[in-house]
């Protein structure tokens, strides 16, 4: 096939939904470069450089430990160290979701120039941003591991399931991020809404408290409890908590919902993003 005959670009086909995967595979180099660009540039002009990526989760850990081990220990019963560990884990996973969604949204705004001047699959920008959050999560996990060993000892074997559970959360995060960042290009209100939503979600999900407490409190209001369960993050956070405390996972409907929900959100997000991304340049 000669270059004359090959269609490189057709306005009718370029942004078709069915081409998402092939586009991303073709432009994987660019995705990698954007990811590295972020990473390199992020701490370049900072004196402590990459150390900041470690300092942030470390400080978070220290303050949570202070709250739980020092402040709560004297006032609350039970295994404080264990629950501190659980909360810390959940906070870090929640933070991954929240920061991914926010930075994905920002990435389109920050790279307006690029979107207005060049033609590449727009998905790359939020994806690269979320990869960065993934790096932060990884570093957070390392810190967590060290703290666990120091505080309690070797983590239980069940922790090995955490990556699998995380896969579900990852899909959900990517989906939500794509959906929200696409909407934000056209309706800037989305950004404000998302910020409020994330704060709201932080308390409406079992981050700072175990799910059992909610189950106990809402035992007599099953409607409200079901409403609470609609939030797919609830299921994931519960699973993290169980795994870190050494409880083996049992297959149940409550575990199915988040997974189904995540896949649905991912599909919706990807399709909406793709459809809207064709005209991003007109709205930026």
């Amino acid at each position, binding site marked *: 096939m000669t*270059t004359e005959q090959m269609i490189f670009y*057709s*306005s009718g086909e370029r942004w078709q939904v069915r081409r998402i995967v092939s586009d991303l595979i073709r432009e994987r180099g660019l995705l990698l470069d*954007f990811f590295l660009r972020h990473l390199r540039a992020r701490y370049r002009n900072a004196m402590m450089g990459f150390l900041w990526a470690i300092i942030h989760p470390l400080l978070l850990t220290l303050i949570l430990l202070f709250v739980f081990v020092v402040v709560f220990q004297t006032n609350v019963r039970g295994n404080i160290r264990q629950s501190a560990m659980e909360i810390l884990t959940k906070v870090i996973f929640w933070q991954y979701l929240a920061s991914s969604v926010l930075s994905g949204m920002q990435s389109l705004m920050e790279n307006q120039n690029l979107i*207005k001047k060049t033609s590449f699959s727009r998905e790359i920008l939020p994806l690269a941003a979320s990869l960065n959050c993934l790096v932060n999560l990884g570093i957070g996990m390392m810190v967590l591991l060290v703290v666990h060993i120091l505080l309690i000892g070797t983590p239980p074997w069940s922790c090995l399931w955490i990556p699998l559970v995380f896969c579900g959360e990852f899909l959900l995060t990517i989906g939500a991020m794509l959906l929200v960042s696409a909407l934000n290009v056209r309706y800037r209100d989305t950004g404000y809404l998302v910020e409020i939503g994330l704060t709201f979600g932080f308390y409406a999900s079992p981050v700072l408290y175990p799910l059992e407490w909610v189950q106990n409190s809402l035992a007599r209001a099953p409607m409200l409890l079901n409403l609470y369960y609609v939030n797919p993050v609830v299921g994931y956070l519960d699973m993290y908590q169980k795994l870190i405390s050494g409880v083996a996972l049992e297959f149940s409907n409550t575990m199915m919902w988040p997974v189904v929900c995540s896949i649905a959100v991912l599909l919706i997000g990807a399709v909406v993003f793709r459809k809207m991304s064709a005209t991003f*340049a007109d709205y930026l």
Partner: protein
Amino acid sequence: MTDSPIIEVRQVTKIYRRFTGIRGFFLKNRLRENLPTTHLALDSISFSVFKGESFGIIGANGSGKSTLLRLLAGITVPTAGEVIVRGRVVPLLELGAGFHPLLTGRENIFLNAQILGMNRSQTEAVFDQIVAFSGLEECIDNPVVTYSSGMYVRLGFAVAVHANPDIFIVDEVLAVGDEEFQRKCARRIGELKEQRKTIIFVSHDLGMVNNLCDRVILLAHGKMVARRTPRETIEYYLRQIGHSKGIHTCCKDKIETVFNHGRLAIFADGRELTAPDGATLSVRAMEQEHSSTGTEWHVTTKSDAACVAEGAMFRLPIVQKWQLEIEGGRLVWRILFECSQDVVVQTIKAVIHLRSFYERWIYGDHEGLFPKISPEDSTWSTVVSPEESSDETAALPVENEGLPALRFQMKTNQPYWHVLWCNSDYAAGSRVLVSQVRFPESQFSLTKGEHEIMTVVIQPEGDISLLRSSLRQRWYRGGFDLGRFRARFQRGSLRLFSSEQELTKEAGAYFTMLIQGLWHDSPQLKWDITCQSENSIEATGESRRFPLKLVWTMSLVPDGLHCKIRAQVSRPLEIDEVNFSICLRPEYGNWNTDFETGAFGDFHTDSTQWRHLNRLYEPGSLIRASSEGYPTVTLRVYALEHMRYCMTALNTDYRLQARVIQAFCASTVSKIRLEVGEHILFEGVISLG
């Protein structure tokens, strides 16, 4: 090559929705009629571009050019219709758009290349070329935040041109960067064109568009206009904006001229003779060029065949006044300056760009071909610029183009004046006639009041042989053949030549009078050749300030050129001093008079005065200047009853760098008094060799 076009645009329409916000959301129904909520940027545009073509898009701001480029680059999609591109596109819409300020130049090159669709190994292959092209070898490992904006753009352009795309989209990016870099860009684009890459070109520089593009479309309010050739499309556009801005078009006898904000476009039989840069006026003052196009113009009087336009210059206290008139098959372009205070001006140039279809020039009795303009030509080059300037010249077109030959006649009262032909750079691609008036700093400048600068008469001429012979006749007017030498009288100054070289400098041989404390040089008078035969010329110069007329008679005698200057005075006049000077080239090293011999020596760098070199001031009859390579120039003066001339040799100031031999007559006791009538002021013979 297969025949499917590399770019196909089919019935493309693009509608932008106007953002109305929450108010629009709630008030939608009530205000629907009043608020247009959409904007039609492109309206059913269709065209195809084939491989190797250069395709230009022109149009006013907001006409949809950028939208079209975005569609072609795949940045956004049309509301209706389809765009198909069969090759890799590199848009140069904004250079360096993807640079991250904190990363180094090197890292950014890789990232930017990646965005433009190159992979890592491809980038590595051309990395050195990119760096070399951008000229940033030294700071390639510094973060780009430390770069100047020019460096930024250079790097961006360097990456883009090395991305080796099939299709290049070039927006107004070449307007950035320094002159050297702009030339580099223009050359590179020329190269890409030679390599038969497809180039989509958007620019307001119509000269460049015309020169680079095989086809041109015009966008006007989202609609497409295309004429048969790029030239015609551009002409249409020029006329369109000309009318819409209330600029004037004069038309008569098949000649048409469009005056557009200090730029003239000239048409004959509906075809444009001038290149898109047209005819402009450029004033050099305070070491800066001030173009007539950068001036606020308004047409004050208009008629079908004539108009007067006035333009107040922004940074000079000058109002330019152009009087245009088409009369008797010729265009008369008269330029006047109205100065609101005294201005020091260095040069004033009328610059006329002709289309490159003009391939021959006629200058005096010489004729020649313009060299071809190639992409390497990044600067203007002089084609013909004889020291002996002619006030008439002509350009002849390629034979079967059907364009008329053009005859140019320049008239000016300003003493220092020069006419030359140039080739422009590749981007403008035109033949340029420059008619230049020069003001030596030490002597002339524009005083407060109105000044006639020059008049250019442009005349299309059908009969070339007639044109040739009339130019030749004209050339010999005012000239003498002295065997190996020639002399030429032009507006109060006599200039001497041996074969091709001029022996004189600046004003040449001229006569000057000190009246009421002011030097009154013969080139400042208004001259007219009243009588010419084969070996004599009589010219009359009228003073604009005093009741005085000089009659200068020159005739060939066996030993040289006899000059006699008479004054006709209508009221009694007192003169302090007169002299007859010949300014010679600095190569003249020695002088001698009846009494003394000497060398001219070096020019004094610190001196702004002319320095006398002789010691004796006795009435004499002869002064001579000699040099090794040049013929000796001798001035013999006849003794007059009432005036005794002394001979003196001078060096001019350092800047002027001329040797002067002079006969002067200064009133020692009383002034030279001229009663009403005719008086002989000077009589002498100039001999050469």
